[in-house]
């Protein structure tokens, strides 16, 4: 729904770089009230934390709860601060560091528009097939592909589409959930 991306290179979500910067996927369960997203985003910008991507959607209309998934990076001390600061927000129910807590699945959905004719058009369709991307719209001169998967897979697909007439990209950012039977 909302996407804030910075030009950080994408890697595995729990990648640790040489300078001790770690990348974490954090799930935040919030009260679905006005301004809650602004609170979370404002916290990140106000305190100088990174947002690589962030999304939010209501997950329980009855209980009025939404789930925010945010991918961020920082030193272990900063990551701890981010979680503590998030927990401190009044409408936040739960903060879960999926990266720290164990195995998890992270997926992203993208809609990708490719414009072209002839050989390139056929080629884009063939690649889409390999990536298991579906066609959700087509005209005689264009396709819209839908693809889900790990962000790196989507990156690779977009790269391949670039020379074939890529004109538009829309991505959701990662949503993630822990593996196994336990809920957040």
């Amino acid at each position: 729904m909302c996407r804030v991306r910075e030009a950080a290179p994408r890697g595995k979500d729990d990648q640790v770089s040489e300078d001790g910067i770690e990348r974490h996927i954090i799930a935040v369960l919030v009260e679905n009230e006005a301004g809650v997203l602004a609170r979370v985003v404002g916290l990140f910008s106000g305190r100088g934390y990174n947002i690589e991507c962030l999304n939010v959607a209501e997950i329980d209309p009855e209980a009025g709860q939404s789930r925010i998934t945010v991918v961020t990076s920082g030193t272990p001390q900063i990551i701890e601060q981010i979680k503590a600061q998030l927990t401190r927000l009044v409408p936040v129910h739960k903060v879960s560091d999926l990266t720290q807590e164990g195995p998890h699945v992270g997926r992203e959905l993208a809609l990708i528009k490719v414009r072209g004719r002839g050989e390139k058009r056929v080629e884009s369709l063939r690649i889409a097939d390999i990536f298991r991307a579906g066609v959700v719209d087509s005209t005689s001169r264009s396709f819209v592909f839908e693809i889900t998967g790990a962000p790196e897979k989507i990156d690779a697909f977009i790269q391949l589409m670039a020379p074939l007439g890529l004109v538009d990209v829309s991505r959701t950012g990662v949503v993630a959930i822990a593996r196994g039977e336990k809920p957040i």
Partner: protein
Amino acid sequence: MALRVFLWARSLARWCKGTRAMAKGKLSGAEIVLKVLEEEKTEILFGYPGGAVLPLYDALFQQKAIRHILVRQEGGAIHAAEGYARSSNRVGVVLVTSGPGATNVVTGLTDALMDSVPIVCLTGQVPTHLIGNDAFQEADTTGITRPCTKHNYLVKDVDDLARVMRDAFYVARTGRPGPVVVDLPKDVLQAMARYTPPPAKSGAHLSYRPRMRADADAINRAVELIAGAKRPIFYSGGGVINSGPKASKLLAKFVGKTGYPITSTLMGLGAYPSRNKQFLGMLGMHGTFEANLSMYNCDVMVAVGARFDDRVTGKLSEFAPKAKKIHIDIDPSSINKNVMVEVPVIGDCATVLGQLIKRWGEVKAKPDAKALNKWWAQIAKWRARKCLSYEMNDDVIKPQYALERLQALTRGMDVYFSTEVGQHQMWAAQFLQFDKPNRWLTSGGLGTMGYGLPAAIGAQVAHPKSLVIDVAGEASLLMNMQEFSTAAQYRLPVKVFILNNQYMGMVRQWQELLYGGRYAESYMASLPDFVKLAETFHGTGLIAKKPSEVDDVIKEMIRTDDMVIADIRIDPLENCFPMIPSGAAHCDMLLGPADKAATPVSEEGMVLV
């Protein structure tokens, strides 16, 4: 005649309203707000009216339970509410109008957030259908105040009003206290709704549940570490005061049991009696030699409700380098924020201190007497340095002397001190003494000039019979001096004790020490005649120009029943020592004028504030 018609019209209006409400069993939004204020036992509102809050003012006019103090600028209202709250451990309540009324409280909200002061601030808002239209006196109040409140609300439906108001008080008062804004559109204040009293047993908040009790494991580890210390120190902060008077009592009890030294932050002064021998004075940038060196050399540090602010720690990499640290705080985000600690203890200060004392008794902990004697002997040597001494002078009043006299002549009295921000604030922290919490009102985290006078007014409202003194700088005082008019209206006999150096002294001091004596814009030219100023606001003005006049002025000030401005003309060039230059370590203190050339401030230090 006119008056009678007016009274008649008023009672008719009340009657009509009464019957209307009775018929439907409903109240207006404005009345619901007042109902909840009553539930919360609010006695005082600090406020300023305007179009968007007229329904609330109208409802206020028709009741007696809540008293409204009309300030002269909304900024004054919120500092007054802070002074009221901090001096009484109650929630300070503010009422201002939309737009400029709301934006005028932003500084005070930030101040209250930084110093964890419980405030509920009601702001008027344009009617809901006009929100977002750039309507007259519209401001995005929840947007503007989101980063400077603990939480804020925009009430769009009168049926939510009572719940939100109760929520606001709960959030402001519990956990780490803070300011909460409730934005009230005018149509919501006018709409009618059924008022339901609060549920007998109010359930836990949906998502906000501060933790009061610490883990037993953390307590055990803390006690073990404290008992085994050889060079221990307690370092207490404003959290102890926010936790309530019981926390201060328990702190004194525990510190007494251990026999360890204790220092305090600016905000924590009063939590532990200053006169006790175990007290080393304030620490930090203008802290005492003994406090800072004890922090630097300690092997176990017990931080109680303090947050390792940069004014306290100095250079982080050299902050208490040999110490194992225990950090007691109700706010988990304070832990490991600036300084990594070995034993985090999350919980309310009073509760945790109670747990520590209990455990201390259970394990029959005995401090290492030999090590402790050695430690105290070392501390005695640092104390002998007498870092707060100054050169007395027969012709010029030294600020330190004025404060020593103020301290001596108010000793044993029922007195509250507020301050403005600058050198005078630091001298006051060094020279005034406190036996009890809640007697010291100062703007620590934000350092807001103009805080002291309205805060004194708020404290005086909370304690009408007590002596309330604002130790002021002349520059700071001018920032909110319109509030003298408030003091006059309500006959609040606040005393303003100006340490008048005719400079923004703290700025001048930095310019002298760090910017080659180039005093850019730090001289307060064209100061008012403060004696006449006092008179113009229906108070009494006093002036002291020589040390020999100080005692008489102070006595006269205390004796006087109404508001007093005492203009104490102090040495314009006096600097506040000790001082840890920004970016330096606790062991690199400047102790007096002779020290200033010795330690040039590092480049990293220069960028710090």
